[in-house]
């Protein structure tokens, strides 16, 4: 069977449909916006969960503007959540809880699915809080 690239909109329409059916899905990471924690080609398991159970530091799949992004929840207010890619120094995505499709539950490794440890969330958040020094270091080292 030849390898084809499925239209993104169609793919995520399918993902959303299957998530609403309660499925846990393994999807590939595209791009490097989540470096150093997730990179292009990594695979993660996602599932739709209640908004209350999503914590700051979790990595979420969300609709944002006309895209679907998989980024880290860095701030959670009642009707406005802020997301940031771990490798993005400037961009913040503002979404409503209704725009969140799923949470990353596990990472697919060679030996199978491995639930993300607490440190993934904690270290990821720490990485986000270090954005200012990272921006400075980036400017200095350019």
């Amino acid at each position, binding site marked *: *069977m030849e390898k084809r690239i499925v239209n993104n*909109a169609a*793919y995520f329409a*399918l993902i959303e449909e*299957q998530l609403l059916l309660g*499925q*846990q899905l393994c*999807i590939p990471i595209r791009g490097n916006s989540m470096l150093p924690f997730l990179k292009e080609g990594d695979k993660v398991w996602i599932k739709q969960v209640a908004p209350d159970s999503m914590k700051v530091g979790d990595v979420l799949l969300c609709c944002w503007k006309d895209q679907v992004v998989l980024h880290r929840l860095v701030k959670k207010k009642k009707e406005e959540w802020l997301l940031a890619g771990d490798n993005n120094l400037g961009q913040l995505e503002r979404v409503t809880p209704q725009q969140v499709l799923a949470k990353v539950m596990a990472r697919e490794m060679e030996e199978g699915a491995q639930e993300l440890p607490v440190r993934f969330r904690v270290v990821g958040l720490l990485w986000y809080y270090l954005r200012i020094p990272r921006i400075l270091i980036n400017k200095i080292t350019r």
Partner: protein
Amino acid sequence: MRLKDGLTLRKIGKEFVIVQPDLGMQDMTKVFTLNEVSAYLWEAVQGKDFTAQHWEDLLLERYAVEPEVAKADVEAILVTLREQGLIVD
């Protein structure tokens, strides 16, 4: 032969995609898609036993093709579906 149990064909936009919702956990890093002709054949035999001849007859009925072309097309589709474990004997 028959289609593997638990598979469903979903039309998403212009694509026909095979999903397996019974599992609860699905690997979506590679999704199987069918073209319109294959999707037609697939839907015609969902939940039933069928033969290659059955599919050939469906193609001849629906499309203006020569029998040899129908036979070759069905063989090609069956090879691909078997390779991916989507058909059981």
